[in-house]
């Protein structure tokens, strides 16, 4: 099957407008006769559910949590981008478009990214109208801050809880539709398969996680907004329940999976503290606006710190190596995530790490506290030479900007970051790969759409900060509502779809068989035991830096682990009840397949780009070495029974508006 990205013709800045002017529309009376299933109620699914219901469609929405408000999106900290140019610092739709394409290391589709930049300003208007309390300046206007990878201040935020506030906004819009009966919400339900009738997505099989009942649900279209698959690494910044099942199940039924190896490693996470660790906690990238990153300049000092003989505060300015400022003078601490992560790893690998395991660097706020405190002292007419006073004033300002993050750090690490610098290390965060979609956000299964982090589309090989929230809401509020209408227009006379069709019976049986297999397996190890093993292979061999040898080994090891899992996993309890181990088992089964495809994708891509760093392909200075000649394409994999048999399809990436150049932040 040939990939058709369906990018509209014409100049880039007119594509979306022209597209909207020419699509098929569904008359409001007919929308009432069309059902749409939405899997996932994070920012992408939640905003889509609310908007499609608003337009008049019948929406059935599913999430595995007890309420849509708890979707993983709630955890996003730093902010959301929008080309509003409220600051007058030179921002524009074009500049956001340009930064995103460049930040993604030229592996994103131009037309999608431009559309994203175009609708970005609208997102802020929409959310504010819904009562989302974004940060304000004293004059009552919206405030902004800057994020990695850009030179303008275009990030809107609500303290360190932006995702929470945006999600609650989408949730409130959903609530309004639930109250009106236009959205039917299925909490604590997990989609375990998609149902395809005559080649089109027509429903899903879901498990009621409270009763264990397997249910059939039909619709005229199915939208998957199930989030990312970073938990394939076991340890990540993702919520514990985040999983790949929905995306993987549609992949197994025909949706191509694109760029699985593009994983974002976030530079500022709390380092791993021990074997019991269940997840990693992010410290928002916005901290890099004010925090300076460093390690000791001398190996002896690093060692003394690791042994507890010296403290960070014992080292003078001259004894520190502010390695980002040194290597990337133009962007300094605000280089993009992939660059910052690799630079930190490079220093730690060279022996300069500052925690017990040698896998941490400092994120230091002393200079910011000093700077803010002095300014505040002047503003208030106080003595700017009074050191204690300056620190007190400065600390208060830093607290007002990042208070909740500092508190989070204190609770986890038991050290006060206002006094001693934070320790941070890179961790798996976000997955840029996902189901392949065309310009309409439709997968290779007709009628099956994929939005938000679960699709591959807008970020290329690396996502700039504050862009995931933007994409999720753009897809749900403003893009899908148009494109799905165009698809559904011919279906208006179809009437409801019966769940008694043989395709439903068959899909339900397959789901039940898999569950029975787990329940009856008399194995010896828990699901987590296998998940942790998978995570270790992934991190060691498919993590921040990869090479052909490691990847080849990983592919074999994952396949072997998968076999062992099916033989030896133990799932207590029964199928017809609330059973969290069973939930985990079905999810880890999918991760065990996805992980292998992930490594296979990483192995075939003989270049370094964005979050994919192949050790064999780097410049003399240790920067990623892209190969545009041979790899300027999206790798879309078709399922053929086993991950090892997956077939590669290529969508060539054509850059008509932005010149492909070496990415430099020097």
């Amino acid at each position, binding site marked *: 099957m040939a990939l058709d990205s369906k990018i509209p013709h014409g100049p880039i800045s007119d594509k979306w407008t022209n597209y909207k002017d020419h699509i098929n529309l569904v008359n409001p009376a007919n929308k009432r006769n069309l059902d749409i299933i939405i899997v996932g109620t994070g920012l992408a699914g939640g905003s889509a559910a609310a*908007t499609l219901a608003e337009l008049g469609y019948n929406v059935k929405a599913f999430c595995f949590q007890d309420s849509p408000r*708890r979707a993983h999106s709630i*955890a996003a900290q730093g902010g959301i981008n929008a080309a509003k140019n409220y600051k007058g610092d030179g921002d524009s739709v074009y500049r956001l478009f340009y930064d995103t394409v460049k930040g993604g290391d030229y592996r994103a589709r131009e037309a999608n990214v431009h559309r994203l930049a175009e609708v970005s300003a609208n997102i802020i208007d929409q959310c504010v109208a819904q009562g989302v309390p*974004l940060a304000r300046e004293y004059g009552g206007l919206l405030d902004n801050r800057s994020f990695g990878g850009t030179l303008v201040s275009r990030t809107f935020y609500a303290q360190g809880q932006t995702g929470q506030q945006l999600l609650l906004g989408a949730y409130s819009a959903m609530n309004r539709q639930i*109250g009106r009966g236009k959205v039917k919400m299925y909490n604590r339900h997990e989609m375990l398969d998609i149902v395809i009738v005559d080649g089109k997505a027509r429903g899903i099989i879901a498990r009621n996680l409270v009763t264990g009942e397997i249910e059939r649900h039909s619709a005229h279209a199915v939208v998957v907004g199930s989030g990312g698959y970073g938990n394939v690494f076991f340890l990540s910044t993702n919520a514990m329940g985040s999983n790949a099942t929905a995306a993987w199940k549609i992949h197994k039924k025909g949706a191509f999976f694109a760029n699985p190896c593009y994983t974002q490693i976030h530079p500022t996470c709390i380092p791993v503290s021990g074997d019991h660790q269940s997840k990693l906690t992010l410290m928002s990238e916005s901290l890099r606006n004010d925090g300076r990153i460093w390690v000791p300049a001398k190996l002896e000092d690093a060692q003394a710190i690791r042994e507890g003989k010296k403290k960070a505060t014992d080292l003078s300015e001259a004894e520190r190596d502010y390695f980002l400022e040194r290597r990337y003078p133009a962007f300094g601490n605000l280089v993009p995530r992939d660059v910052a992560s690799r630079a930190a790893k490079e220093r730690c690998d060279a022996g300069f790490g500052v925690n017990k395991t040698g896998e941490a660097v400092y994120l230091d706020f002393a200079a910011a506290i000093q700077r803010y405190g002095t300014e505040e002292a002047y503003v208030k007419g106080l003595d700017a030479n009074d050191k204690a006073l300056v620190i007190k004033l400065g600390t208060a300002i830093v607290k007002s900007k990042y208070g909740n993050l500092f508190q989070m750090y204190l609770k986890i690490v038991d050290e006060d970051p206002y006094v001693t610098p934070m320790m941070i290390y890179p961790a798996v965060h976000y997955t840029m790969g996902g189901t392949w979609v065309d310009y309409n956000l439709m997968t290779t299964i007709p009628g099956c759409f994929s939005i938000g982090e679960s699709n591959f589309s807008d970020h290329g090989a690396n996502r700039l900060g504050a862009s995931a929230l933007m994409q999720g809401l753009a897809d749900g509020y403003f893009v899908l509502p148009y494109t799905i209408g165009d698809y559904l227009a011919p279906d208006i006379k179809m009437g409801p779809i019966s769940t008694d069709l043989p395709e439903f019976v068959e899909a339900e049986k397959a789901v039940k068989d898999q569950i029975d297999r787990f329940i009856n397996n008399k194995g010896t190890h828990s699901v987590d035991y296998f998940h942790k093993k998978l995570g270790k292979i992934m991190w060691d061999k498919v993590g921040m830096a990869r090479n052909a040898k490691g990847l080849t080994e990983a592919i074999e090891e994952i396949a072997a682990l998968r076999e062992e899992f099916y033989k030896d996993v133990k799932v207590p309890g029964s199928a017809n009840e*609330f059973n969290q181990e069973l939930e985990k088992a079905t999810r880890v089964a999918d991760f065990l397949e996805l992980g292998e495809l992930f490594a296979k994708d990483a192995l075939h891509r003989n270049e370094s780009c964005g979050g994919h760093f192949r050790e064999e392909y780097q410049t003399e200075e240790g920067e990623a070495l892209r190969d545009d000649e041979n790899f300027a394409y999206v790798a879309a994999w078709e399922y053929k029974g086993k991950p090892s048999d997956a077939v590669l399809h290529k969508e060539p990436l054509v850059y008509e508006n932005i010149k492909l150049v070496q990415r430099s932040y020097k």
Partner: protein
Amino acid sequence: MKLTLKIWRQKNAQDKGGIVDYPIDGIEPDMSFLEMLDVLNEQLINKGEEPVAFDHDCREGICGMCSLFINGEAHGPDRGVTTCQLHMRMFKDGDTIFIEPFRAKAFPVIKDLVVDRSSFDRIQHAGGFISVNTSGNTIDANTIPVNKEDADKSFDAAACIGCGACVATCKNSSAMLFVGAKVSQFALLPQGKVEATERVLNMVHQMDLEGFGNCTNTGACEVECPKGISLENIARMNREYLAASLKG
């Protein structure tokens, strides 16, 4: 650390349930409370027993999914944190720890430590929103300036994570702190004013229908709230409610 855990086990909503003792060893102070339960569950599974069911997801104090009544306190002995942020360094070697579900009529137990908090959602369906069309034809966000103080207060109210600790800790199982926070968020913003009357009436009405008790101003909710939602929000809701009742 060596601990004795006394955990509420209840097979399902119909089961009567009861406390079961679990001795546990090798707990590190750096572990979170939920990681300690992970360790217990791993041991139970290896012994062929059923693990303890408990709710959790983000494990960083923001989703509101984790719950647990620990030694008689919602989210345990530390202040201003959720259970997933509670660390074992708050306990001592040899401690006995009681772990129970959040109890309230409006939060029925699903299994073990997992309760059903969808009553909170239904209160939100009744009015926890601003009725604006979601298809993007709104006015520019900066055309309505919002006083920074109001915006900050609105944010403080909106920071409620819907965990239900306020209900669990209240002797009347009142949901006033939660509903007060939701009402306040919108009441403080110009955008929310238009529907203020119906909003507060409908939400309070639904709150009563769900079987939450009344507020008798004990203030236990504020003390246990992991997000520092203040009683001021209850007062604001009462004012809004009174004004709305007078109007219509």
